[in-house]
Structure formats: structure tokens, C-alpha cells
């Protein structure tokens, strides 16, 4: 019964095994957090870039293309993180640590999907996402899961709502908003069919529904108000743009008007 040494040696191996597992887990959580962080910054960057352009609904969609390009440049940093995780997630390990990697991946897919939408006005496909997470030979760093793909895109609808509403008062904004509205509506109905398979999608579908309603309400308000004036959308844009420009560009050259521009305060 003096098997003590044998047993301790046995447990020594388990310790090494468990430590190895826990350390890898920690490393992956950190990396995933970094990926989330960078992806979030990219989303903000995309929003900012789209706000910078005065007209977001040009025929050639130059602003969208420009923003998408800058966004993708930024996302290369995230892709580098995932390239570095290749060894850690090799073979059998991928599924072991899937839940640690998944949050960052979803955020990345959201950012990538946003850039894609701004450029093409369509949903990024599963294969297109997987291709961005592969080496130069096209070999994936690790398999992309359908659930991460769907959940990332489901989050995208929230960003699109923000994008549509914040741009709604600008030139071409109303047209853009109605496009986004139709697109999000399409996403919601496409995802509906897949919801029974992916557990978390149910909650996100609810949020998508809320985002959709916000866009719809905004579109409604604009429609009702603009119907009071018998003007074409372009002319309405002009009136709005004029009113805004008298405040925004430089306060001194613009006609001084009573109101809430802080330039007025400086003058007095």
C-alpha cells in the first residue's frame, strides 16, 4: 500500500497536463480580447469615414469603397493575430478552445462584414470570411464555424442601424437608410430559418428586430415630414445642407444667425 510515490508521479503528469491546458486557454482569451478590441476600433473607424463624406450615396459609391479599403487595412492586424494562433488551435485543439476564440472571431466578422457591405451593399459570404483567415496558399488557419459566421453577421445589423440613422439627415442619407432597411430586413428573414440550429441566434434575432424597427421608425418620420413640402428629395437635401453649412464650415463667414452655434457666443 506504499504506492505513494507512484501516485504522486501520476498526479505530477496531470498537473503538467492541466497547466498546459489552462495556460493555452489564458493565452487564447487574451488574443481573442485583442482581436475584439481591434475589430471594434475598425467598426468605429468605418462609421467615422462614412460620416466624413458629405454625400454617402454617390453613383460610383466612392466613399464606401474608400472606407472599406481603410477598414480592411486595419483588419489585417486582426488577421495577423489569428495567423499567430494557428499552432495553438491545430487539429484537435480547435474545438477544445472554440469558445475562447469565438467572441473575437464574431467581432472580426462583424467588422469585416461592415466593410464588405459599405463597398458592395451585400452580405459577405461564409467562404469570403474563411478566405481572409487563411495563409497565402489559401490554407485556413483554423476552420470557421457557421455559428460564428451567423452570430457575427447578426451583430452587424446593429451597426447598420447606427449607420443608417446617423446618416439620415445628410445628403443621400434617406436613400441610404431605406437601402439599409431593406437589407437588414432581408438578413433577419434569412437568419430566421437558421435560428433553430444556432442557439444564441435566437436572442440576436430579437435585437436585430429592434434595430430594424428603429430604422423603420426613422424612415417613417422622414417620410411624413418631407411630405409636408412638395419638393424632390434632392432639393430637400439642398435645403438641409445649406442650413447645416451655415453652422459647420466656419462660423465667421456664414451669415450670423441666432441659435445654438458656439461661434455666436464667441462673437459677443
Amino acid at each position, binding site marked *: *500500500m506504499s*504506492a*505513494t510515490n507512484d*501516485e*504522486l508521479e*501520476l*498526479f*505530477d503528469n*496531470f*498537473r503538467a*497536463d*492541466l*497547466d498546459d491546458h*489552462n495556460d493555452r486557454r489564458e493565452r487564447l482569451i487574451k488574443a481573442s480580447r485583442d482581436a475584439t478590441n481591434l475589430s471594434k476600433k475598425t467598426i468605429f473607424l468605418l462609421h467615422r469615414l462614412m460620416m466624413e463624406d458629405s454625400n454617402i450615396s454617390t453613383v460610383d459609391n466612392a466613399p464606401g469603397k474608400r472606407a472599406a479599403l481603410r477598414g480592411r487595412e486595419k483588419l489585417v492586424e486582426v488577421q495577423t493575430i489569428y495567423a499567430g494562433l494557428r499552432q495553438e488551435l491545430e*487539429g*484537435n*485543439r*480547435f*474545438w*477544445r478552445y*472554440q469558445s475562447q476564440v469565438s467572441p473575437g472571431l464574431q467581432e472580426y466578422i462583424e467588422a469585416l462584414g461592415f466593410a464588405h457591405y459599405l463597398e458592395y451593399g451585400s*452580405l459577405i*459570404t*461564409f467562404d469570403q470570411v474563411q478566405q481572409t483567415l487563411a495563409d497565402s496558399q489559401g490554407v485556413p488557419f483554423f476552420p470557421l464555424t*457557421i455559428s460564428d459566421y*451567423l452570430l457575427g453577421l447578426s451583430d452587424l445589423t446593429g451597426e447598420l442601424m447606427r449607420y443608417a440613422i446617423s446618416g439620415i439627415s445628410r445628403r443621400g442619407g434617406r436613400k441610404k437608410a431605406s437601402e439599409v432597411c431593406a437589407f437588414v430586413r*432581408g*438578413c433577419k428573414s*434569412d437568419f430566421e*430559418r*437558421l435560428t433553430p*440550429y*444556432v442557439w444564441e441566434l435566437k436572442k440576436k434575432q430579437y435585437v436585430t428586430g429592434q434595430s430594424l424597427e428603429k430604422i423603420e421608425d426613422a424612415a417613417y418620420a422622414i417620410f411624413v415630414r418631407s411630405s409636408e413640402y412638395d419638393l424632390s428629395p434632392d432639393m430637400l437635401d439642398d435645403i438641409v445642407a445649406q442650413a447645416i453649412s451655415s453652422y459647420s464650415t466656419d462660423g465667421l463667414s456664414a451669415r450670423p444667425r441666432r441659435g445654438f452655434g458656439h461661434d455666436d457666443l464667441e462673437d459677443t
Partner: protein
Amino acid sequence: MDPQDLETLNVLLDRDVELRENIKDQVNEFDKKTRTMVGLLNKIHSTPCFGEVPSLLDSVKPVLTSCQEITAAIASIVPPNQLWRWKELWSNSLRTAVFAAALIEYLSNRRLITLPKVAQTLGLKDEWQDRVALPAEDYLHGIISLVNELSRLAVNAVTLGNFDEPIRISIFVKNLFAGFSMLNLKNDTLRRRYDGLKYDIKKIEEVVYDVSLRRLASSQSVPSTTQ
């Protein structure tokens, strides 16, 4: 979304659902077997004469061996590299099987069964490592169940007039506890169950105390624990 892409995703997801169902069928069978074993092994608490224990264990062993059919079936269903995707489905059954194997080994040889030995008993092959395997975590869960069971046995053995058993159990469990203390566990179920081990040890210690105080145990086994 492009209708074609949507359809592709749908097909893939359907395939996963089917796979899950197939695994579940096997796990149900696995579960039946492990429950049968636990039921049979429960009789150790009411087997007055320890001479009857070996024949009881012999009745459990075929059930344990038959678990090999299940592991083989699971290995044939699970796609390569997807062990960790599906293992939650059979973890509980697997841990119970470890427990049964460990209890049989303890009662037969008073030894701790090793992880490779359990894997071998369950017919787990090395080439299945990416589909069905026995990870350290599941093995350790099974061993903790063994300790839980032995603390019960220590009490019931005394009731049945076997006063040496608690002392043997005490030494065995203390060694095991020393082993578990070497592990850096994170906050998960294994950690919680490890934290619960001290109550089993306390229970066994009390039995040993009662037995030795009343000089019920045979003299040669007493000094080794009370020192």
C-alpha cells in the same frame, strides 16, 4: 443572402443535427450500461462477507467491457478533430465508467487504477485521440467519485462488521488527496468537487477514530494510521 449560400449553410447545419442525434443514441446506451454498473456496485455496501465481493465484481466486469462497443461506435461517428465539439454529450457516462473501473480495481487490488488502464479497459485506441478519448479531467472526475463512494463504504463496512476496511480506505484516500493537492485547478466543477473531498476525508477519519478508540480494528493496522 444568396439563396444558394443559404441552402448550403442549411444543409451543413442539418448534418450537424443528425450527427448529434446519432451520438446521443450511443450515449443513451452508454448511460444504460453505466447505470447498470452503479446499481450492481451499490451492493458492496450490503455485502456482509468480503469474500462475496469478488463474485459481485465479476458480474460487473462484463458490463464494463461491453462499453468498448460504445466507444468504438462513437469513434466511427465523430468526424476527425471534433472530439471536443461533441464530448460534452458523453462526458458524464465516461466519468461514471471511470468510477466503476476505479472501484473494481480498488476492491480487487487496493490500488489506484491508472488513466491508461481505464482507457484500455474501455477499448479506447490511440488513433481515436481526435474523436473519442479519456482526458485527464474526466479521469479525475471519476476518481473523485471513487473517493465519495469509499467514504460511504468506510461507514457501511463497520456496520457490516468489517473494521479493517475503513483504515485501508483512509490510507488510500489520503494518498489520493495528496495527489489532488498538487494540481493547479481553476474554478470549475473539478475544483468544486476537489474542495468537497475534505468532507469525505473527515468522514473517513471519524470512522477510523471510532474504530481504533474502541479497539475494534485488528491490532496491526491501527498503528499505521494513528502513528
